[in-house]
């Protein structure tokens, strides 16, 4: 109905329907005046044109001024205010955290709330209950094993995300072969190749690093160390070996398949072992796994197995991170 009106385009309804449909509103300068005669109209038209020209010039000047303002000055002012505010807010947070720290219980005081029955039992009965001489390992792999289980899956989900972002050949790239060749080229140019000093050093160091890592994992329940730290050491050894000898040598024993098998086996063994002990523990069934004599290498029940699993997962994850960041593929 409303379209019968001549000035329909100016009506509120028209603007409303434009807003509804997501169209930009069009501004109309003057309304058609249909009650005037032709002469008056032409005279008016000329006047209008004159006015329009001056107005356009004026507008253009103003427009240029305002158009350039945000790019020239506005951005600077915004950035400055933003930076000042950021610094002020950071200072406020730092200040309030420092004030908080000054009210905390004194460090190392024996009356602190932290020294309660929880840590007492860990220290006094940890060896009998878990069989691990290293109390920390006993704590993370036996008392609070659920947290550590989650923590190893944090690593796993992180490596999955790195796979999503960095791995070549699984995205939407058109020419995967070109991409891979380009990455390999980059790798040859930028990374050390046949560096004699590095190779000789790695020749002596890598076996020692591997053995030390394995020692740290296997003796995790007896001395400082455990799956996470030992796995990190082995991963560092693998990376050093890769740097010295290049991909051709490492691919003989470490490919994508190795990574998948090792991490899958590690995490599933971990899950199976821990679900057994959680299930028996919660249902008050006696666990059939013997704790052994504390101090022996084959002792402390499942902790040794779990340490090996965690170590395998961590070392593979470290190596996978390095390879994916360097070449985008195994």
């Amino acid at each position, binding site marked *: 109905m409303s379209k019968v009106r001549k000035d329909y385009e100016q009506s509120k309804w028209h603007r409303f329907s434009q807003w*509804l449909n997501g169209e930009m509103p069009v501004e109309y300068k003057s309304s058609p005046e249909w009650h005037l005669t032709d002469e008056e109209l032409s005279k008016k038209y000329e006047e209008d044109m004159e006015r329009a020209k001056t107005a356009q010039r004026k507008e253009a000047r103003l427009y240029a001024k305002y158009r350039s303002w945000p790019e020239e000055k506005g951005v600077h002012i915004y950035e400055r205010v933003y930076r000042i505010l950021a610094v002020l807010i950071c200072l406020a947070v730092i200040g309030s955290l420092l004030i908080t720290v000054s009210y905390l*219980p004194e460090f190392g005081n024996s009356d602190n709330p932290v020294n309660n029955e929880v840590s007492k039992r860990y220290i006094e009965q940890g060896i009998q209950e878990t069989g691990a001489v290293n109390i920390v390992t006993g704590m993370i792999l036996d008392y609070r094993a659920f947290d550590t289980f989650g923590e190893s899956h944090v690593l796993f989900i992180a490596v999955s995300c790195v796979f*999503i972002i960095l791995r070549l050949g*699984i995205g939407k790239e058109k020419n995967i072969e070109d991409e891979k060749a380009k990455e390999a080229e980059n790798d040859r140019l930028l990374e050390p190749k046949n560096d004699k000093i590095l190779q000789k050093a790695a020749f002596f160091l890598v076996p020692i690093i591997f053995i030390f890592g394995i020692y740290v994992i296997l003796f995790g329940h007896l001395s400082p160390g455990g799956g996470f730290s030992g796995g990190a050491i082995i991963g560092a050894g693998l990376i050093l070996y890769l740097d010295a000898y290049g991909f051709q040598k490492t691919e003989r024993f470490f490919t994508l398949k190795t990574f998948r098998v090792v991490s899958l086996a590690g995490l599933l063994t971990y899950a199976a072992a821990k679900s057994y002990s*959680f299930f028996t523990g919660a249902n008050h069934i006696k666990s059939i796994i013997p704790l052994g004599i504390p101090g022996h290498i084959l002792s402390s029940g499942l902790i040794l197995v779990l340490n090996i699993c965690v170590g395998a997962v961590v070392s593979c994850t470290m190596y996978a991170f390095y390879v994916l960041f360097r070449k985008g593929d195994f």
Partner: protein
Amino acid sequence: MEFIRNLPFIGIFLCMSTGVINSVLDGKWAKKVSFTVITANLFMSILVLYYVWQTKQSYIYVMGHHPAPWGNEIRFGILEGAFATFFCLIMLLSVLGGVKRLEEDISEKRSNLYYVLVNLLMAAILALTYTNDLFTAYVFVEIMTIGACGIIVIRGEGRSLLASVKYMIMSLLGSGLILIGLTLIYDLTGHLLMSNIQEAAQQLVKSGQYQVPFTSAIALISVGLAMKSALFPFHSWLPDAYTYATSASSAILSSLVSKAYIFLLIKIYYRVIGLSIIFQNKILNILFLFGIAGMIFGSLSAIRQDDLKKMIAYSSVAQIGYIYMGIGLGTTAGMLAAVFHIMSHAASKSMMFLSASGLSQVSGRSCNYRKLIGAAHRNRIAGFAFLVGAFSMVGIPMTAGYISKVYFAQAAIQAPYQFKMIITVITLGISTILNAVYFIRALIVIYQPLKGQKQGADGRRDFRMAVALWALVVTNLFLGMHSDAVVDLLRAGLRMFC
């Protein structure tokens, strides 16, 4: 002990191990495994809910041979059972509805990784729902942070990469604040187990010791979780993340990930700090103000959008504001309304994201309003689901959103401070009008009659999305029409929550 009490633990472990197994399967098998596991979890959660509803008490499940302050434990009562069931249901329907779009957005070789992330997210959500230990909660918060970034970035476009980087920065900042808060609480109480912390906290308040660090710990945890769930001033990551992710991811992010963080916050208030302490705390007033501001500014930004998905994303900011306003009222009635709104918003928002993707699929893959004209005639199911969702957001009777608005208004009237009551009631009114403005605009656009073109259903029908949308419509209408039963359940759950 009855076997049924093992089900929460079995559910979490099943999700995590199948997530790991999915990484070696190919896309099709991973999808099957994922759907099976989530469905199994849904049934297990229903059994758990039925069990705790029958026995009317909550149970503690010790994880391992060592009892609670030394070992880990999980605890489940009515509220946990209800939310686990609900989260599993929404997860299942979100992935089911978005699976066709997913296959188009994500290359074949990568799609198994999506189901790895989905399974681990499901495990994290379940663990956050059931856990009774602050540090376990933090570990699964970490899994959820990384997983949520992964399901945005997996689309592999420039804009989704940028959105995910934005999200990651804000989310990690939130994680950092939560961690500082946890360390402070551990330092002051010497416990990580929720119920033990509450005892120690009550003694601290009685003796008046360490009030400053305790308050700042509460503030840090609240702000950290508020950042992760996109409360108003920290919402800058939200629109991009929800818009440029694939539709299943948007649904999961908006209705599960951010809601699980809010659930954790409510759990911390109830079980770690204690209601009597938190209701006296000034932190709630700040959350209240942020929530009120979010309700207004989120809606105002939504009105300005020309993109349907972005509009829905900004409307999420407003709805998160509602939830925090309910928490900020500082009464049990407010908490109840907030908890109900978590459910009703999750049910409507996942439906809206799925139906937006359904509408854009028949409009040239664009969510722009100009392209969407008459889209509801081309895809009737998506149009109807969008209609129900929009009605629910505005608060038309018979939908879930109406009930939560009624409960918010009731809670506001019972609030102890008159000031809060007046502000809440006025803002509820303004926000409802603003919601109506942008949702009715969208409805008019998608239901505009087409001239010349053939009206009718599109040839390429997405059966799985239709099933998911119908199920979500039914869930929403169930929440709206049988709200008494649900609210009774939640009230009983909250009573045994502390």
